[in-house]
C-alpha cells in the first residue's frame, strides 16, 4: 500500500478504537484532506469526529490541547509543519509545560500530526524540515514516520501516550508504494530501530532520509561495504541505547537528515556519540544534512539542498577511503 494509505488506515484504526478520538484540522473533511489522507473519513465517521477547522492554527491547536486536558483524545492535524509556527506558543508553553507547571496534576495527551519535508518544488515557506525545533522541547514526544510500517502504527501507539505527541509525516512519500511487514501489529514510541544490520558503519537517520539510506546501503553492499541503518523513529526522547549499541559494534557513524545542518538532530547525536562512545570510534562522526539555504524552487537546486542517495553513498565510501590513505 502507499504511505498515504497506511496513514489513513492508522486514522481509521484509532477512530474505531476509541469514541473519544476525533480528527480536527484544515480541510480534513469536506475537501477530503489536503493530501487526501483523510479522504472519505467524514462520510464514514461524521462531522462530530472529523472536524474541519478555520485557518486558526493557534486557536485549534490550543483547542486540541484543552480538549485533551478535559478527557477527549483529539488528533490535531496541522496541514504542514510550515504553518505550525503560528501554534508554537500553544505547543511549547501549553502542551509541553502543563504537566510540569501544575506539579504533575494535569496531562495533555494530544497528538499533533504534521506533514513536512521537501521534494515537490514548493519553495522556501512550504518545504521546512523543523524536526530539530520540536525535538529541542522537553515535555514533548517527537516521532518521525520514515517508513510505511510506522505510517501505519505510530499513530495508534501515540494515542496511548499520556504526554503530548508530535508526529512528523512526509509529504514526498505519500504516493510511495511499500510492502507492509505483516508481523507488525503495534510499535513503541520509545526506541530507534535497526532496519538493516551491518558491520562496517552505522548510518543513523530518520524521516524522508530513511529509504534513501536503505537504498544507498543496498547499492554499497555490492561494493563490499556492509552498512547498518538505524531509523531513529523517536526524535525526543532519543534512544541512546540503540544508537550507541550500533556505533560500538561498527565503530563508525554517519548521521543523515534533510534538516539544516547547524543545530540539528545530527548535531545532538554526534555530541552524544562523542560523549559516550568516543573510545569505540575509529573515525570522527560524519553528518550528511540539508544545505543551510531556504529551500529554492527550481528542481535542480531543490534536489541539491538535501542529501540524495548518491550523496549518502559518497559520504560512506569517503569514510573508508580515508583509511586506505
Amino acid at each position, binding site marked *: 500500500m502507499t504511505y498515504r494509505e497506511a496513514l489513513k488506515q492508522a486514522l481509521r484504526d484509532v477512530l474505531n478504537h476509541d469514541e473519544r478520538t476525533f480528527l480536527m484540522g484544515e480541510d480534513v473533511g469536506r475537501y477530503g484532506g489536503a493530501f487526501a489522507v483523510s479522504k472519505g473519513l467524514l462520510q464514514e465517521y461524521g462531522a462530530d469526529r472529523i472536524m474541519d477547522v478555520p485557518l486558526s492554527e493557534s486557536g485549534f491547536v490550543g483547542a486540541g490541547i484543552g480538549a485533551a486536558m478535559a478527557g477527549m483524545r483529539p488528533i490535531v492535524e496541522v496541514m504542514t509543519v510550515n504553518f505550525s509556527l503560528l501554534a508554537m506558543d500553544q505547543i511549547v508553553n501549553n502542551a509541553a509545560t502543563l504537566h510540569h507547571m501544575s*506539579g504533575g496534576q494535569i496531562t495533555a495527551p494530544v497528538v499533533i500530526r504534521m506533514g513536512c519535508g521537501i521534494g515537490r518544488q514548493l519553495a522556501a515557506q512550504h518545504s521546512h524540515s523543523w524536526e530539530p525545533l520540536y525535538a529541542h522541547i522537553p515535555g514533548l514526544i517527537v516521532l518521525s514516520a520514515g517508513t510505511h510500517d510506522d505510517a501505519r502504527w505510530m499513530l495508534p501507539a501515540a494515542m496511548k501516550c499520556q504526554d503530548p505527541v508530535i508526529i512528523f509525516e512526509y509529504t514526498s512519500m505519500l504516493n510511495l508504494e511499500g510492502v507492509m511487514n505483516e508481523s507488525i501489529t503495534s510499535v513503541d514510541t520509545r526506541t530507534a530501530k535497526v532496519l538493516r544490520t551491518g558491520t562496517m558503519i552505522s548510518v543513523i537517520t530518520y524521516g524522508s532520509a530513511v529509504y534513501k539510506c536503505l537504498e544507498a546501503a543496498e547499492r554499497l553492499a555490492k561494493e563490499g561495504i556492509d552498512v547498518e541503518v538505524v531509523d531513529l523513529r523517536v526524535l525526543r526522547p532519543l534512544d541512546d541505547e540503540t544508537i550507541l549499541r550500533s556505533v560500538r559494534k561498527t565503530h563508525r557513524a554517519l548521521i543523515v537528515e534533510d534538516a539544516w545542518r547547524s543545530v540539528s538532530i545530527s548535531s545532538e547525536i554526534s555530541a552524544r556519540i562523542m560523549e559516550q562512545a568516543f573510545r569505540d570510534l575509529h573515525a570522527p562522526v560524519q553528518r550528511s544534512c540539508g544545505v543551510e539555504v531556504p529551500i529554492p524552487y527550481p528542481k535542480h537546486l531543490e534536489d541539491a539542498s538535501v542529501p540524495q542517495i548518491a550523496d549518502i553513498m559518497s559520504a560512506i565510501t569517503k569514510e573508508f577511503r580515508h583509511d586506505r590513505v
Partner: protein
Amino acid sequence: MHLDPETTRHLLRQMILIRRFEDRSAEMYTKSNIRGFLHLYSGEEAVAVGVMNTLTTEDAILSTYREHGHALARGVDAGSIMSEMFGKQEGCSRGRGGSMHLFSKQHNFYGGNAIVAGHLPVAVGMALAAKKLHTNSIVCCFFGEGAAAEGEFHESMNLAALWQVPLLFVCENNRYAMGTALAFTHARMDIEAKAAAYCIDAEAVDGMDLMAVLEASTRATEKIRSTGRPFLLVCNTYRFRAHSMFDAELYRDKAEVLEWKKRDPITVFQQAAVSSGMIDGPAIKALEDSVDEELQRAVAFSEAGTWEPLDQLTKYTYAEGGRT
C-alpha cells in the same frame, strides 16, 4: 437580586480574604520569600468573587497570571497558594509554578497562565470537550483587556461561536495592559462591542460593584447553560496596585488611583450591606479577624514548608515514567 445575611457574609469575607492575602503577598515579596513576578489583584475583587459564585464545582476555570483572587474565590486553600509562591512542595503546583501558575485539578482550576491570551484556545477546547462529553458543565476563562488585542482572543472567539461551546469569556478591563492605557492599545475601546463580530452575546458591567457582577454573571451563565452558546462578560474594573512588584507606575496619575479607590468594591459592598441590615460592625470585625487568622496560618504553613529534593528535578517533565 437580594442576598441573605449568610451569603452577604460569605461574599464579603471572600473579598476581604483576597485583599488581605494580596497585602500579605506583597509583604512576603519584600522579605524575599516570594520571588520572580508577583501580580496583585487588589481592587478587582468583585470580579473574581462575583463570577466565581455563579459557577459550580463541575465548571472549569482558566485565568491569567493575576489569578490569586480567582484561586481563593474558587476555594483553593490560602496556605496552599502561599506555599506555592514560596516555592515549597506543599504548594498547589508542588512549588513548580509559583505565583503565575496556580493549578488545582480538584478545584477544576487550570491556571495560572503567563502568556497573555495563551490560555484562551485551551479554554475553547475544554468547552468543546464539555459539549462532546455532555457534562452539562461550562468553562469560565478570565483575561484582561490587553489580551483582547492578541490574535488568540479573536481566533478563540470565532472558534467558540463557530463550534457553539459553553464558554464564559470574562474580560477584566482594568484599563492598563501593563503600563499602556486602553486608548493606546485598542482601536475600538468598548471591548464588549467586539463580540458582535463573532456573533457572540456580550454585556459590560461595573466591575467595582459586586452586586452588578453577580447579577450579570448569573444572567450570562444561565444563558450559556440553557443555550450552550458562549458569552463575553466585560467587567470594567481597576487595579489599585502596580502591574507587578517591578512597576513604578509612571504611566498613571496618583490622583486617578485615589479617585478609583473611592469606589473600592469592598467598602461599597460593605456599606450597602450594613445599610440594608445584612451585616453589622461586630460581624465585620469577626470576619476580618478570621481572615487575619487564616492568613497567619497560611504564612506559618508556608514558612514551615519543605523544598522539593533536587533529584526530583526532571520528575514532571513527562507524565509517563522512563522518559527524560
